[in-house]
């Protein structure tokens, strides 16, 4: 039984829209969890599987670092926790099967970890699936734990199921059934879109580990996150009337069914607030018409148990005449959140175009985004920095970036828009420093 709770607040950047339609307004929903910070012995047990890429590109420093990270995980777990280790290249191999981390289990884990050696091509899906399966088997036997897969990969998947959408859909399906997936991208060659999509749909985090020593930092950080989470699998639901078009801004896995948008927000840590921004395209209507949006959220206790629901809230948008619409005040804090989500989304898309070799399209895309963003940013304290960063990136996005630059811009925008922390002891340079 948990006493943790989920707090939901939500509101609009501006509460009125023009009667003739076409106004764009933003809904900002904030989710935070509260609860007693549990001492280590009371933290939920972990049922963790490490799925480790051992394809030939991992040879050298990276496989060494993955071994060290896995050893550190085995040392950090307690006898209440279970660890599975899966090595995958063109096929997936189970090295350790949901072993309790008591003395004998730890010894078995260390032997298994020593067997991690680099070999062929990359079948990431099979590696992930085998890891999820071992977690699911242990989960069926003892549900009261935090059930997690941590995928470590440095490459592009080229065997088995390789379709990003398909793999992410399965990660989402398993999340609905209680298994969380996070991913660590190692080096400069990993597929950030694939790992990002898996982590977003899988309710976990995407970590960038450019250098070998960073692998251990982020793996242990993720482990601590599994311990400290107050709520897991948090989901945000927004009901919108049929005449209002809404879209999620930012890298959130979401499902849109008629009248409802569901966003997978993932785990919530102490003192962490996750913000999700929705762009609303407002309809026309008689002045004084009000449009109600219902926002609710729920999640699960991290010990694999109870459902936790937040109190639902409503946001009200009113259609008004032109003069009243133009003179309305706006919420500065929410407007800044909108800018952050918007900037991060624009950066992600620009990185994708740059990687596809279409620097010119990326430059034009950011030019167009800036044209819309600049008027929105006027008068918002803190927005100038975001605009400046985007302008600096826009000037350089036409060039051919190296993979490290792409990875860092992608990871930074991903973390910023999802309110996630970079777990590395030495976070990468800021965008301004990198492009100035």
């Amino acid at each position: 039984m948990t006493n943790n709770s989920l707090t939901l607040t939500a509101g609009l950047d501006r509460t009125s829209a023009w009667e003739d339609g076409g106004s764009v307004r933003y809904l900002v929903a904030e989710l935070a969890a509260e609860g007693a910070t549990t001492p280590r012995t009371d933290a939920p047990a972990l049922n963790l599987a490490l799925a480790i890429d051992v394809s030939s590109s991992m040879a050298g420093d990276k496989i060494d670092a993955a071994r060290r990270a896995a050893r550190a995980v085995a040392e950090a777990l307690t006898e209440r926790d279970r660890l599975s280790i899966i090595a995958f290249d063109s096929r997936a191999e189970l090295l350790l099967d949901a072993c309790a981390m008591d003395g004998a289990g730890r010894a078995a884990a260390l032997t298994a970890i020593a067997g991690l050696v680099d070999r062929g091509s990359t079948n990431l899906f099979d590696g992930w699936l085998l890891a999820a399966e071992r977690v699911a088997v242990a989960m069926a036997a003892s549900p009261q734990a935090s059930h997690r897969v941590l995928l470590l990969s440095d490459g592009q998947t080229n065997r088995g199921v390789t379709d990003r959408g398909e793999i992410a859909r399965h990660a989402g399906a398993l999340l609905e059934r209680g298994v969380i997936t996070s991913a660590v991208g190692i080096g400069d060659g990993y597929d950030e879109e694939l790992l990002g999509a898996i982590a977003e749909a899988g309710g976990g985090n995407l970590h960038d580990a450019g250098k070998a020593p960073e692998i251990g930092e982020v793996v242990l950080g993720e482990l601590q996150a599994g311990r400290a989470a107050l709520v897991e699998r948090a989901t945000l639901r927004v009901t919108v009337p049929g005449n209002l078009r809404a879209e999620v801004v930012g890298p959130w896995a979401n499902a849109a069914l008629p009248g409802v948008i569901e966003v997978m927000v993932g785990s919530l840590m102490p003192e962490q607030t996750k913000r999700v921004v929705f762009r609303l395209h407002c309809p026309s209507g008689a002045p004084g018409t009000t449009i109600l949006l219902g926002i609710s959220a729920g999640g699960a206790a991290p010990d694999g148990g109870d459902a936790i629901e937040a109190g639902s809230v409503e946001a009200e948008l009113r259609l008004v005449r032109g003069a009243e619409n133009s003179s309305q005040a706006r919420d500065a804090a929410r407007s800044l959140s909108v800018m952050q989500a918007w900037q991060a989304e624009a950066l992600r898309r620009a990185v994708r175009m740059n990687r596809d070799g279409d620097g010119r399209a990326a430059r034009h895309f950011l030019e167009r985004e800036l044209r819309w963003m600049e008027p929105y940013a006027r008068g918002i304290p803190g927005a100038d920095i975001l605009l400046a960063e985007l302008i600096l990136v826009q000037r350089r996005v036409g060039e051919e970036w190296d993979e490290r630059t792409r990875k860092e811009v992608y990871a930074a925008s991903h973390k910023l828009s999802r309110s996630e922390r970079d777990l590395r002891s030495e976070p990468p340079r800021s965008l301004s420093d990198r492009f100035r």
Partner: protein
Amino acid sequence: MIATPPQQKNTSRHVKLIDMSNYLMSNPSMITTEPSLSDLAAASGIEARTIRSWVAQGLLPAPLNRGPAARYPTDTLERVLAIRAMRDALGMQLAEIRKELLVASQEQIRGYASRAQGLAPVPRPQPSASSALNYIDALRAGPLAAPQSAFLMDEPLIPQSLQGFDALEHRLSQGRAPPARKARAEEWLRIPITPDVEFSVRAPLEAEQRVRLERCADLIRDILLGRDR
């Protein structure tokens, strides 16, 4: 619980046109909220593969973008449910359904869709501790084990012997010198309005422009059928 939003004045056609133009101006590339193929499949109880075949047959609108993350116009679910009801509850053939969809008003489509409610799957209960394992077992054993096959079905097959365009080209070129290269293919979109009237528009079109034209086609159909008042 979420409070039910109050009923809005029914201005949906006008509103959608405005929405689209605004959408084009503001940010055509942002993530949209239209359902994906898997959303449609989950909500309707119809297999994704079947929905794709209905799209190919023109029973459903084409997705707004390409690829596995493709999204469909918001009213697609209603059409899927309507087709399901016409097929399963009323025993209609797909050709009849196609004609009916071309002339049915939004209210009529909604009426058909509501008949599918009894056929639609009940919402999934909260997963049990073993449901993750069941899912993986099904994934390994069933048709899900090759989930990309539905997409691969659209890939052209490599012919074992000459057939189709290969055969045509082979036949035409037999005994003739290679012609001067003059013909250039053009892509056109065809939007059926009624069984006797269609729109033809030169491609490429932005997905949003296509949706607007489809909306225009709907308005023309209403005018042609005397439903414009």
